[in-house]
């Protein structure tokens, strides 16, 4: 089963994302910040990581930068989940190694469509 790591400090957002992805047949592991996510990613290889940008302890951009240095995550899709839609923020994510981004708010269909395409 395709396992996705969902990272967000907001419990409701994380639960929503996890629930939506699970309903679409994915296996989801949740993490509440970048630090926790990085530890989880070191233990197993996820097929995709979906990370919020603004988080305490370790933000999403730092997480992506760290993940890209790991051999297991060299080509793995890493998506930023963000409301920051200005070019600078997206570029910061991109230059850290993010594959792309999803802009909040999004509905479940958008989330699933995007994830399925990326994993196709």
């Amino acid at each position, binding site marked *: 089963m395709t396992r996705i790591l969902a990272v967000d400090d907001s419990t409701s957002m994380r639960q929503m994302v996890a629930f939506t992805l699970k309903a679409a047949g994915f296996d989801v592991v949740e993490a509440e910040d970048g630090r926790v996510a990085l530890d989880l990613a070191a233990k197993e290889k996820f097929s995709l990581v979906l990370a919020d940008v603004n988080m305490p302890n370790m*933000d999403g951009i730092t997480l992506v930068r760290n993940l890209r240095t790991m051999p297991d995550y060299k080509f793995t899709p890493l998506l930023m989940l963000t409301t920051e839609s200005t070019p600078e923020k997206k570029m910061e994510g991109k230059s850290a190694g993010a594959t792309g981004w999803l802009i909040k708010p999004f509905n479940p269909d958008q989330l699933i469509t995007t994830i399925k395409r990326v994993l196709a």
Partner: protein
Amino acid sequence: MEIDFSRFHQTFFEESFEGLDVMESALLKLDIGNADSEIINTIFRAAHSMKGGAATFGFLDVAGFTHLLETLLDQMRSGQRAVTQHDVDLLLRSVDVVRGLLTAARDSTAADTQSVEQLRAELEQTLLSAPSDKPAAVSAAPVVAAKASNHWHIRFAPHRNLFRGGNDPLRIIRELGTLGEMQVTLDDQALPSFEVADAEDCYLAWNIELHAECSRASVLEVFAWVEDESDLTIELVQEKAAAAVVEAKPEVTKPQLAVIQGGRENAAPADAHKASSGESGSIRVGTEKIDSLINLVGELVITQAMLAQQAAALDPVLHEKLMTGLSQLDRNTRSMQEAVMSIRMLPMDFVFSRFPRLIRDLAGKLGKQARLVMVGESTELDKSVIEKIADPLNHLVRNSLDHGIEMPDVRLAAGKDSSGTITLKAAHRGGSIMIEVSDDGRGLDRAKLIAKAKERGITVSDNAPDGEIWQLIFAPGFSTAEKVTDISGRGVGMDVVKKNIQALGGQVDITSVDGRGMTIMIRLPLTLAILDGMSVSVGEEIFIVPLNAVAESLQPRAEDVKSIAGQGRVVRVRGEILPLVPLREVFHLGSGITEPQKGILVLIESEGRKVALMVDELVGQQQVVIKSLESNYRRISGISGATILGDGRVALILDVGELVRANACDQAA
């Protein structure tokens, strides 16, 4: 996909209210003129999360409003805007408005639109006064596809490092195919010989002819993730062009684009790295689950006590192993009980944290200066007690500021610091918690209180001890403030405060020094679920008397007991005459001792009055798990609850307050 989002609403509301608390306390910590960027970041992050969640879960008014807050905060954290008192005040008021909006959304009630609109206007006005982005509406406005059928020529030449961002050119081309019909030509001219090619690099390029009813924006949208990692040209052509090498399969339906550009938002380069919030692993659990766990542990304690009682009859030598096991069970049950009870414990900070804001706002309104000192915020107390003590404390603090602390000029004239101090203190004392609210204000005025009492027709002796006089402020309808303010109201309340505290099994004491301030001390049991009780027997029955109400117990001499015509009996205890209340008669029991000198008198005290309860025997002292009688049977006068004893029998817990009230009214006799 149909997903009911309402299942996440509860969590969203909980975390949003927490976020508001975080914002509020951080705002109060902000130093005007020298704002800590970390604190601004914390506030920003809270507003930001709230906006994202609100927009996702469809609370658009909350999302719209928090968007304004976020914009303002973003200007602050990026240094475009100085942190002024005005802005902090505005943000604090906004916190209140958002709280109102969230409450309205949660309870499906109407929000106070007037104050929302007013503050929204103020925020927008404030935002105009600094370089700012347009406050855009937050909505998932889908990209509207243009209607005309266009022919696009697209050249897509990814940079060699494309794969390293996790992107796949084929995915993008497939996605493009969903827009309309297309012909794709592969350009592999840049592909080197296999000996030198790096398998991790991308050497290919594509030429695409797309016939679709879409705008340039929709086409760009598809390449949004890779436009900076590729050379991309998109041209509108009218004529049909070159031959197809790869025929992409256009999908029948035209799904909404996956990547949606939301409302334009403010950029913020700064990041929220090292948040200081003391993150520790925690999980959110419904209180009913914890309550049921506590209940089960209570049952376990009872079962354990039953086993211990049965085992006491056995020969300890013959059953040595069983005895060891039982004593281990005893220890483990106790530790488990303690551990479970501690889950329900919350730090006093839970209540105290609201006061800095309260004092700040009130002092401003009253033209007074005051600071708040909090001691022992980490002292833990049962959640249910904490929730119920919040309102009384609120009232006491307001009172201290309104009636206790003087105006700055009066204070200076009295040789005090112009700024008053209100101290909130919490500490554990044995099985109780002591909470103190003290101020260094004018203190209570004895003469004024006595005069007021007489005016109200309350009998009070001029020579009564201070303690008794101070208690007058808890009398219903008693207020000594010259003018009624909207802060602490009209004297209603203090009596309610006392009633609430007593309902929790607590006590209130006051000390006051004229001109130096007053202190209100509240003593509360740590938990409402367990009670330290004294078990007493009457005939076959066992009753539990709450230990904190027991003053003493004694066996009276026959000559100390007197009968008074029509009023039953009284007993003299060291010169004090107390009503004698045989428990046997209160509950109409068929058995039990009738002569006081053969039984035991337990002196119980409530609201400063005492009665002597007559029982057969004192059985022992133990912690009992309180079971509600009302939820299992019905309310009985004089009984506050029940518990199960070690032998499986039910024992009733006496309602001391009620017993004293019913029997001590003629105490003067």
